[in-house]
């Protein structure tokens, strides 16, 4: 077999292994959707009445607060998914199975390729579950089929970027604890963006940060695709962030992947 055939075969083999692992360890999916679902319930049912009125006044939209808050929480899921891939990667590295793979004559990048693809799929499934929960809570969107395809592309790109970052964290972390705590600030980042309330309602300094941080253009693009609100430059800025974060996570992963981490 040629190198290309090996590359595809080994990536597929390891992808199957990862998906099998994910199915048998659903705790990871539960922990990925846990935090966003908790916030969804909290913000819609506890703060929703007050926040909804404020948001409706300043940002338009459908008038249901669940509709406003959902894009931010979907992007938050990309961050919790990133945590999931950091944990899975770190677990693999400390379990010794990856060391075994590395002593075998396989296409080595397959290990990371399989990890990234399976994590992206896992987070997309988690996001679909969150859409489902939101739908039960009265979420409705005006998106067309083409818009939904755009949403799939956007969320795949966001997940791809944050997964590489998670893999980078998982490879760099010396222990599982570090791997599971380090991505935590990412999860709170949508709060200091347009996730919960419009940035226009924030004090100047915070507003500046909120408008320029990576999650805001992603949230705004998703919001635009869902409800037809203006996207403007946000799609391009979000794309640039995705490329940048992917490249950073990839380079970081490569640097640490070569190191042997067992013992």
């Amino acid at each position, binding site marked *: *077999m040629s190198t290309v055939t*090996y590359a595809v*075969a*080994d990536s597929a*083999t390891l992808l199957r*292994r990862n998906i*099998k*692992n994910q199915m*048998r*360890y659903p705790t990871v999916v539960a922990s990925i959707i846990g935090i966003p679902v908790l916030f969804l319930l909290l913000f819609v049912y506890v703060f929703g009445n007050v926040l909804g009125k404020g948001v409706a006044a300043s940002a338009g939209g459908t008038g249901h607060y669940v509709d406003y808050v959902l894009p931010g929480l979907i992007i938050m899921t990309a961050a919790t998914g990133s945590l999931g891939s950091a944990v899975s990667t770190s677990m693999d590295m400390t*379990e*010794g*199975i990856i*060391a*075994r*793979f*590395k*002593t*075998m*004559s*396989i296409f080595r990048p397959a290990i990371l390729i399989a990890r990234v693809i399976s994590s992206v799929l896992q987070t997309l499934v988690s996001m679909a579950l969150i859409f489902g929960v939101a739908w039960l809570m009265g979420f409705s969107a005006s998106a067309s089929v083409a818009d939904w395809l755009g949403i799939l592309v956007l969320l795949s790109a966001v997940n791809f970027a944050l997964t590489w970052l998670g893999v980078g964290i998982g490879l760099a972390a010396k222990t599982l604890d570090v791997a599971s705590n380090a991505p935590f600030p990412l999860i709170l980042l949508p709060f200091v963006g347009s996730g919960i309330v419009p940035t226009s309602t924030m004090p100047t300094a915070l507003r500046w940060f909120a408008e320029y941080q990576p999650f805001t253009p992603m949230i705004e693009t998703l919001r635009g695709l869902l409800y037809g609100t203006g996207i403007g430059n946000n799609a391009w800025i979000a794309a640039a962030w995705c490329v940048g974060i992917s490249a950073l996570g990839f380079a970081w992963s490569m640097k640490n992947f070569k190191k*042997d981490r*067992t*013992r």
Partner: protein
Amino acid sequence: MSAYQARSSGVDVAISVAGLRKAYGEHQVLDGLDLHIPAGQVFSLLGQNGAGKTTTVKILSTLTTPDAGHVEVIGHDLATDPDGVRANIGVTGQFSAVDPLLNAEENLALMGRLWHLDSKVAKERCARLLEQFDLVEAGRKPVMTYSGGMKRRLDLAMTLVGAPRVIFLDEPTTGLDPRVRRAMWDLIRDLVADGVTIFLTTQYLEEADQLADQVAVLNGGKLVAQGTPEELKRQVPGGSVDLQFSSPTALDQAVAALSGTPLTRNDETLTLRVPNDGTAASVQALLGRVDVTTVHELSLKTPDLDDVFLALTGTAPAPAAGDADKKEKVLA
């Protein structure tokens, strides 16, 4: 895994290592290691914790790159053809490299696919390994539920799926209870009978004594001795009988009675060390020459690898039995 594999290619030296050096920061772990390991033998690298055994295995199995030195495994240069090395080796380490969320069958099948085996060949081999390693019953249970011994057996079985010609066993029985350890030894003997070359690291001298054709003692990043277990044992003083006497007078009398034999006398403990091969006949002959009513205590001392280790490294080796006992509870 059959005999022809190790011999057919005409490679007599399975592993050759010259001038291997590796440092982690300030710490020089390997300081110029040379090894020549013939094919089809068990080579045992002996040393205490931190002697550099695992580092050696990691380098030879392509996990870690050395700072200097030349390594060839089955004729493949480690530096220029690591994939050639990888295609010929299997590694079972101290910490199990199994997927805990898969079952034994799936773990073995995964190895078959990563070795790019024909699916029929892989299926047959995995089924045979499950049987050989007594894992048929547990085959479909998740590995998470396995005992330490079962995990270790599965680990070794996974290493064998690709029928590698060189197998690295890095402390394969550390932490296993004595019964499981003996079962592992039998499995290792079967492998050698099939023509596989085994590179075994251990801190248990008994293990090296039981299994190895060649033993090398690693201390401070250097080899301090190399040879067959018998050759190494010959390097230390032979066996002896220690006689402790009831009084200084009795000791004097015994020394007089045994004149002509090279004796080691200790007046403080009233002990006399007499060279003796430890057989019943020679002990009886010795006792016939002294007044046994004055002998307070008698002890036999036969040389073992522990003496070699002590003589060569100046430190006592790890107590195998005690260590295993401690971990037995955890693994049971």
